[in-house]
């Protein structure tokens, strides 16, 4: 007898409909992209016992375990329970029954660069923030991609997400420690945005140009620069890959505090719910906003959000991307 499946339910349970009619593929989330190594043995166990013994590492920092026969799904879900407990429930994700597998898959794993647990450039613990975001927005069926990166180097490619969160350092100078060596000035000019200059032999920062990368703190030999211990974030939005109009995300917020970031992300779902085109099988957030317009989207995201005084909101979105239909190669 042939397999009879409700593919919608299968996919919502984080299993894929694949190019192999008999087998599915489980998507394991790793919020923040960092996990205790002991959990890998369970992933191996599932791959060896139910799958084809291989694992695919995804760009979203998950594991895909292919080759699982559809009828094994309930058993795989029970085997998966300890992982859901450790990687989701433990960070505050509300899951009622961890023996049923993932309750949703639309909102994707919240990815993170390696952050300040390892990287000297990082302005925050990106994994910890990604986990707090996961606990804020997951489980959810709407397709939303979020990633957190520790500095504007953007190793996690936050610019290709619906929401990219970039750690910012509010750098402060203790002018009495500046010896005018220009190490910070030269570095900011050559590698960052040229936000610094010497005035009367003391480094002075142009707040409009500074992107809060924190490099001046790394360069200064006398410790004149340091980060304000309060954390700030830039949020870039509506970046995407895909077939129609790939583009880099544009800056929406700068110098926002974490509660603002979390509140904005909470607000996204209401906007999608109100505006999504239900005649389509799926409409990505970016295309919804293309139809509805930035001002309405901005107002929805900021609805009821108490902005911290330092936060700045973009007047318009300045996307860098292209349309395939307008591309020279397509016309020729």
């Amino acid at each position, binding site marked *: 007898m042939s397999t009879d499946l409700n593919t919608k339910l299968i996919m919502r349970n984080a299993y894929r409909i694949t190019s192999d009619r008999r087998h599915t593929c489980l998507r394991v989330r790793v919020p923040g992209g960092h996990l205790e190594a002991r959990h890998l043995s369970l992933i191996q166990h599932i791959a060896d016992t139910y799958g084809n013994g291989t694992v695919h590492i995804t760009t979203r920092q998950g594991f895909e375990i292919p080759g699982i026969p559809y009828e094994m799904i309930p058993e795989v879900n029970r085997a998966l329970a300890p992982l859901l407990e450790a990687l989701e429930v433990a960070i505050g994700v509300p899951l009622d029954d961890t023996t049923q597998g993932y309750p949703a898959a639309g909102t994707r794993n919240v990815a993170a660069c390696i952050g*300040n647990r390892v990287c000297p450039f990082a302005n925050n613990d990106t994994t910890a923030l990604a986990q707090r975001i996961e606990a804020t927005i997951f489980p959810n069926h709407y397709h939303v991609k979020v990633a957190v990166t520790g500095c504007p180097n953007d190793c996690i490619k936050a610019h290709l997400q619906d929401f990219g969160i970039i*750690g910012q350092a509010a750098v402060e100078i203790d002018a009495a420690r500046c010896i005018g*060596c220009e190490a910070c000035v030269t570095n900011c000019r050559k590698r960052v945005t040229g936000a610094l200059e010497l005035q009367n*032999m003391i480094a002075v920062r142009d707040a409009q140009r500074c992107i809060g990368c924190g490099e001046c703190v790394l360069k200064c030999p006398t410790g004149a620069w340091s980060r304000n211990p309060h954390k700030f974030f830039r949020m870039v939005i509506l970046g995407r890959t895909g077939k129609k109009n790939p583009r880099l995300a544009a800056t929406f917020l700068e110098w926002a505090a974490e509660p603002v970031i979390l509140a904005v992300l909470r607000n996204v779902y209401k906007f999608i719910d109100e505006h999504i085109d239900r005649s389509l099988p799926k409409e990505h957030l970016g295309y919804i906003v293309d139809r509805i317009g930035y001002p309405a989207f901005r107002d929805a995201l900021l609805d009821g959000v108490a902005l911290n005084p330092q936060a700045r909101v973009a007047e318009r979105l300045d996307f860098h991307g292209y349309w395939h239909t307008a591309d020279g190669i397509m016309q020729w």
Partner: protein
Amino acid sequence: MHDTPSETRRVRLSCEEADILLDNLAAHYRLFAPVRLPGRGRFSDQDAIRYAEVHTVHEIEHARRSHFSPKEILFPVSQTLFYLMDDALQEPQDDPRDMLVFLRACDIHGIARLDDIFLNNGPEPEPYYARRRARIKLALLECRHSLDEHCFCVAMGTNRTDAYAMAVRCDEGQLLVEVRDDDLRPALPASAAPADFTPEFPTADPQPVVVPDADRLQSAIRDHGFFAHPMWADYAKRCIACGRCNTHCMTCSCFTAYDIAYTEQPNAGERRRVWASCHIDRFTDMAGGHAFRDENGSRMRFKTMHKIHDFYQRFGRHMCVGCGRCDASCPEYISFATCISAISRVLEER
């Protein structure tokens, strides 16, 4: 009740008593000690440990070395030497209060090195330093063992000292105190319980560091072309001339000075003196644009020779006091202690 003069007192103080001691001291002295500045470290979420004015015992960082040394209390990173206004010239008013600085044995030796440079090097003592130096008393923060892997005070002979006015040990929330200075003794709270406390000192470095014999080193330099040894070429490839080894060092004491005119008031201005260091670009710049130690290996060599050779030839003791701050701060993992041990090996092999 009066103490007999010159009688050392040794006491154990509870937390509250220790703060009374600090309060009493603060009536006459500004107190400086290493403190932890949360989140102000070079990397995010890491603390900076720096010298700052303190008022309570719990502010003092007892366990770890300060990143920057206490030299900045005597020799500030940046200091206005005088203000200029038309033809008039005026020195700034320095805070007239006396100071008590909590610091470790190596740093107490470090102050003796700064004294050599600023007070004993020329015909006249350097007045800005001398003024502050006269107002400072030293409180030893005891190190019973090396603080961490970077220390090499035992090798440099700077692990022990008796050049302190008082000494403290943090002992499970209580403070053991030895007071040797007559002026400080009255600050002890009346309730202080006598204790059997004299500071202990580290007796071994975590890793052996071999200090080159200065005379053999001199002959190697003069007669055997030691400056051309390939070890310096290796440092040329590794050192990025960031200058942190200098700025964190307890004994680096070079400075430069410049004049500025105030933007709003161009006929007024000031002369400032700021730290300058042999690893940092422009240190050897001369009129005409020539720089005679352009290459980073030669800067490493120059610093090393100053620390363990040149200074010794002039003052009869090494400049380096083995505080380990250079090694702890170098982003390229260049270890000065390893360097001087390597020099010793080269001299042995000759």
